[in-house]
């Protein structure tokens, strides 16, 4: 295994593109090292991006926030403004692993690991977040929901690397929330995850996005679920429709963490509960 | 004579008897007498059993005294975690 510490994303991209075997990017390493040590993925080239300038920075941009690819969960949680504007995203990343994992894990890593159960991904999708990508052909932007394509696989081309995540401007009276179900109170992989982001006008939901995790091969943006609550004040009928739409969107598997029935049912429950929290945040 | 209570798989090796009377002064004597009377039992007894005498479980000691008033119960060999 070759270990590299490039100074720029362009150099990182060149190193990744040049590897004909397996190449991996190292930011927090909380997935890469687990896979390495368990012999699941032993990369031929490992590119540590933490020496690239700016990767640890959180910068305001067009009313939103640009979050460097190596900003850890702990660092994001300590950023008061981001936490005030996007508490759902911050909490979602904060749910990943232990305090120790928080010292290392990143939004970008959580996304690029392409696990369907990644906690921060539904939250980023609900927020309408985008990522910046550096590749052999220059840089490009992409929607978060377009990155994962199946468990463990992304739409990134060889040599492409995500350099930052962009959270858009929150807008007036906005709120988001992410909830997940795990068997214990901590340390588990999500069995179901649900995120809701909305803006409220005059007590009614003006716009909303609902995303689910761990209920399909990738995190899902569920437009029917959002439609169920737009224009409502989350009355019981709207909440029931939201839950039903969320459950209807599920295409899960039964595995050691949960059954199809359980995931489908609980997706609706969590979507409802998350919507309530998002609404309270938007209106308070 | 000492009356000895057997658990099932031992009693299966003693023609189904659940209680057997043997001449014995110690737990060791009891086991020797049983194996002599029912040779089929020897392997099981050798593999290890525990003997309860008057409510005390004797895990492995053979020298514990018994008499005709003793309550003697053969149990599976005790082990723990």
């Amino acid at each position, binding site marked *: 295994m070759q270990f590299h510490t490039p100074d720029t994303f362009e150099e990182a991209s060149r190193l990744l593109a040049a590897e004909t075997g397996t190449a991996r990017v190292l930011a927090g*390493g909380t997935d890469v*090292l687990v896979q390495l*040590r368990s012999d699941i993925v032993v990369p031929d080239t490992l590119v*540590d991006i933490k020496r690239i300038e700016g990767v640890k920075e959180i910068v305001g941009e067009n009313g939103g926030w640009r979050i460097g690819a190596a900003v*850890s969960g702990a660092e994001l949680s300590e950023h008061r403004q981001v936490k005030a504007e996007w508490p759902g995203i911050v909490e979602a990343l904060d749910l990943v692993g*232990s305090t*120790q994992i928080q010292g290392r894990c990143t939004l970008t890593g959580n996304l690029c690991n392409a696990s369907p159960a990644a906690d921060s991904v539904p939250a980023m999708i609900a927020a309408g977040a985008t990522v910046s990508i550096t590749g052999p052909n220059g840089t490009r932007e992409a929607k978060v929901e377009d990155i994962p394509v199946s468990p463990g696989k992304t739409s990134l081309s060889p040599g492409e690397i995500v350099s930052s995540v962009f959270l858009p401007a929150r807008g007036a009276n906005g709120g988001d929330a992410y909830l997940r179900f795990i068997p214990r109170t901590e*340390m588990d992989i999500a069995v179901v995850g649900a995120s809701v982001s909305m803006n409220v006008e005059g007590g009614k939901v003006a716009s909303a996005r609902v995303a689910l995790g761990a209920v399909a091969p990738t995190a899902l943006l569920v437009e029917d679920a959002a439609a169920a609550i737009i224009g409502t004040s989350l009355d019981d009928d709207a909440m029931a429709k939201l839950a039903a739409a969320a459950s209807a969107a599920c295409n899960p598997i039964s595995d050691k963490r949960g059954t199809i029935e359980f995931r489908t049912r609980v997706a609706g429950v969590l979507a409802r509960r998350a919507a309530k929290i998002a609404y309270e945040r938007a209106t308070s | 004579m000492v009356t000895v209570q057997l658990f099932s798989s031992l009693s299966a090796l003693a023609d189904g008897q659940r209680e057997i009377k043997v001449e014995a002064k110690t737990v060791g004597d009891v086991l020797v007498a049983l194996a002599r009377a029912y040779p089929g039992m020897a392997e099981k007894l050798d593999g290890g059993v525990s003997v309860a005498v008057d409510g005390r479980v004797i895990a492995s000691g053979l020298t514990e005294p018994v008499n005709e008033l003793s309550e003697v119960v053969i149990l599976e060999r005790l082990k723990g975690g």
Partner: protein
Amino acid sequence: MIHVTTSVNGDEMEFVCDPRETLLDALRDRLQLTGAKEGCGTGDCGACSVTKDGRLVCACLVLAAEAEGSEIGTVEGIAEGEDLHVLQQKFLEHAALQCGICTPGILVATKALLEKNPNPTETEVRYWLAGNLCRCTGYDKIIRAVMDAAAEMREAA
């Protein structure tokens, strides 16, 4: 092999390592600092907790090569000379360890907590320590020791 220069508990140290080796491997096998334990190797048990540049991390999920230029803190650096840290003393007084294998990781983790939050609630302590598995104690006496240490440190401050 990669040459690494790093600081451990304030002492400059250097070692060479395979790129696949973890910081935990290097601390234990290269530097003979065996206080950090490997309970799982996958970041699930916290027995290898150390600080890297002030952040609590699992040493099993950091590559040894990443330690270049870092400041690492381990359980061996908690006491000052022969004087135990309040946390260490309270763990002894409260019988907060049975086998003691999780103790180094828990001490490193709770020290990091109290530096960040000197007055945590019981719930905050429990969630902060959720990544430090203990199989012996049921956590009861550990939590009591941490709360007591925090109170004493606040009084002393």
